[in-house]
């Protein structure tokens, strides 16, 4: 704790003096703005916050904040961040990476950070393309993505990041979108407040190599029609007029879309239960077209955080010379 805690922090307190070098119009600008606001809202001094990133456009993120930051190597940010937490569990540690970082070269580390439940906030900036290497298809690119490395269109099934995280045993899985500036802060705040590994997929538009990859989802005027905003304990309604509903088909174990006016009763509308892992998997499977894309907290279940479970606190050694002599 230091002097900075005394005054109310503002988003500007979290900006660095470095010139931001993302392409004009990149979704990362919007995310950066939200993160700064959320950090100010959380209120911890920038000296106690660490951003760890891998390699890629998204991974330049730490340079643009006034917190401590470590721009590491491709894919390994979650592993480095785990080490940071092991050494000093008191730090507020965030991990930023793109779909290449988190889902491809670093997929293994994402898996294990999640299943261990290391107290990290993992932000996946998913733009479904390799941007920094000039536009190759990525593990989250839809089938048929034409790119320099797939001129005839990609044939691989994309990885569904939220399903992957749930399958890995993540206890906090959420989703947001870059341009939804009123929605995303709440998601990030929830992620921060969760003690353990919180996984947030942020749908992010790459204006140069994959513009419009998420269709209307991150189009502020149309988004309501193609996404459903999840609120724990609230009925799952969507559409500009809140006139569409999700109904859970118990037999199939999937959500179905219905016109609210066509339902016999509003009680048929599914109510979001963020502690229900089966429903979370069903939500994670919902994709456009056919279903609205769920945004918000898909799943949140308390679980002991890894470093705490190991019993590590502070940074000091419990040993001194006498302890060493006793050990020998």
């Amino acid at each position, binding site marked *: 704790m230091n002097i900075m805690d005394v005054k109310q922090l503002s988003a500007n307190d979290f900006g660095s003096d470095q010139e931001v070098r993302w392409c004009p119009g990149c979704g990362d600008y919007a995310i950066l703005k939200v993160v700064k606001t959320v950090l100010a809202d959380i209120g911890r001094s920038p000296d106690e916050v660490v951003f760890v990133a891998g390699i890629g456009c998204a991974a330049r993120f730490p340079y643009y904040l006034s917190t401590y930051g470590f721009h*590491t190597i491709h894919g390994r940010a979650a592993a480095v961040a785990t080490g940071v937490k092991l050494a000093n569990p008191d730090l507020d540690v965030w991990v930023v990476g793109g779909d290449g970082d988190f889902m491809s070269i670093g997929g293994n*580390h994402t898996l294990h950070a999640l299943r261990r439940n290391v107290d990290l906030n993992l932000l996946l900036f998913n733009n479904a393309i390799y941007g920094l290497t000039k536009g190759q298809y990525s593990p989250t690119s839809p089938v048929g993505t034409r790119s320099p490395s797939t001129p005839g269109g990609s044939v691989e099934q994309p990885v569904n990041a939220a399903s992957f995280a749930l399958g890995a045993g993540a206890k906090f899985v959420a989703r947001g979108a870059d341009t939804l500036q009123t929605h995303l802060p709440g998601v990030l705040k929830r992620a921060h407040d969760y003690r353990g590994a919180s996984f947030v997929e942020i749908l992010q538009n790459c204006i140069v190599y994959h513009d419009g990859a998420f269709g209307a989802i991150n189009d502020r005027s149309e988004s309501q029609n193609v996404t459903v905003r999840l609120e724990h304990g609230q009925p799952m309604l969507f559409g500009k007029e809140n006139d569409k509903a999700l109904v859970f088909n118990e037999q199939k174990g999937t959500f179905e879309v219905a016109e609210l006016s066509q339902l016999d009763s509003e009680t048929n509308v599914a109510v979001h239960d963020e502690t229900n892992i089966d429903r979370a998997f069903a939500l994670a499977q919902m994709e456009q077209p056919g279903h609205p894309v769920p945004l918000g907290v898909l799943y949140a279940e308390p679980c002991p955080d890894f470093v705490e479970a190991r019993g590590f606190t502070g940074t000091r050694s419990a040993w001194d010379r006498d302890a060493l002599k006793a050990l020998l």
Partner: protein
Amino acid sequence: MAETAVASGAADTARKTPLVVRFAGDSGDGIQLAGLEFAKSTAEAKSDFMTFPDYPAEIRAPAGTLFGVSAYQIQFDSDEVLTPGDEADVLVAFNPAALKTNLQNLKAGGVLVVDETHFDNRGLKKAKLETNPLEDGSLDGYQLITADVVKRTIEALAPLELGRKQATRAKNFWVLGLVYWLFGRPVEPTEAWLKSKFRKTPEVAEANTMALKAGHAYAETIELSAVRDYAEPRVAKGKNRSRIISGTQAMAYGIAAISALGKRDVVYCSYPITPASILLHALARFEAGIRTFQAEDEIAAVSAALGASYAGSLGITASSGPGLSLKTEAMGLGVSVELPLIVIDVQRGGPSTGMPTKPEQSDLSMAVYGRHGEAPVPVLAPATPDECFWIMLEAARAAIDAMTPVIVLSDAYLANAASDWELPDIDAIPDIDWPEHEPNGADFEPFARDPETLARPWVAPGTPGHAHRIGGIEKSSGSGHISYDPDNHEEMTRLRAEKIDRLAARWPEVTIEDGPEDGDLLVIGWGSTYGSIAQAVRELNAEGKRIAHVHLRHLNPLPRGLPELLDRFPHAVTVELNTGQLCSMLRSAYLKPVECISQVNGQPFQVSKLRDEFTRRLEALAT
């Protein structure tokens, strides 16, 4: 064949010379355990000693097969013992396969203790033996002691009413009892150990104790008088009751010392790999001071260790060759961001999976050169199990003083070999100083350098007023901001190299271990070959040969004084368990025609081989 036999082959010549005992059997026979207990008994007897476990990679290879044979060798004496010995005075063989593969390690006229249980058609066939060596005269040159060990163990344990299989498990202790008698060792310390080790299963302790005593009594009954001289004690001068330490355990204590003397928890991250995993096991047993982390892979292990160092702890990771390959990118990041990190490589036979349990020194080039870009790091190598303790402290100081990853090269031999260990004087070891920073970061520059060491400041997250960003992109000297400026990159590259080179000034000058200050032949070793080289050179010095031994603990940067030493000897030769990696480095560094005595058979050097090699070279010089 008689049930027991004491054949006296060669005449017994037992003087009070060093003795070598080798146990060999199936990896499931409890060979390593019997060997270790014998070593502990040797420590109790206050002898100086060195041990070497020689075991296969397979956990439980099919019983009786040639490839499933595990062995444990120990040499002990009243004088200083530097190696586990070339050839055994006593070989204990638990089955035909063990006899076949280990007989070559027994001295002519040596004592051969054989469990004859498995010398039937089936056992001989598994060992690919045409005839029974116990009957075909091939063992005439040895003092043969045979016993039907399984039968006798079962008989001895009859009062416990155990099943045949369970009783048979105690046969290693029956044999150990017999061997104890040979060497005049009491059974009581082992009995006490069994009681404490199996306090939760007292029936196991009892079975093994009964077997131990039965074997001991058996030896007494049959009066193995021909070899009774082995029981003469070999007490090392000035030796108190010492303890056994393996290189791995010494390294674990060294890491504990870093934590205690630095007053900061060490974060140890590793992924299971033979023969490095045992270090993780040793550290995980400590209840405080070390935060162990079994990572998901080698890359995660080194990355987490680097993350821990970034956060103000000292991160340490260990692996073997294949793992070191995987760690190189993250080590390059450590070089670029200039953070302390220790990477231990317990070398094994390579390339690829190679020979996972066998020692080799073939990762030296990778350690010194094996990263992309210009990425020099200090490379250290302990020479003995004892030095494994001290090298960790030296590595920690180098890592912190120069803000750099450091590689420590151990090997499968050093990790497993054990010797007696004199406890270090903890009060005499200086503290490890962690930097402290004033909470005033207005002018803070993460890549400003100490003018003497060229190290940058180590400021961990959480330090008030010093928040900054670091990364693998080239940084502007001083400010640490991203920089693609050509002159800056040139400057930073040279600074990073100069910083490592300057460590040599802080390290001790290299000195002659044994032999004259100038002479005919300079032998240069590094790492675990120390004992074999020292023994061979001392023997030749005693014969008046002008041969000297230097042993390098610092492989990058090379130590001060080495070029001057090379100037004082007309001929220099490295001794390496590789095809000449240090030799190439020295030729390149000093433009001297250094030669190499090389061995890559997965075994430590035998003293006799080195003696022959040195002698041949000395004779060639004389002509």
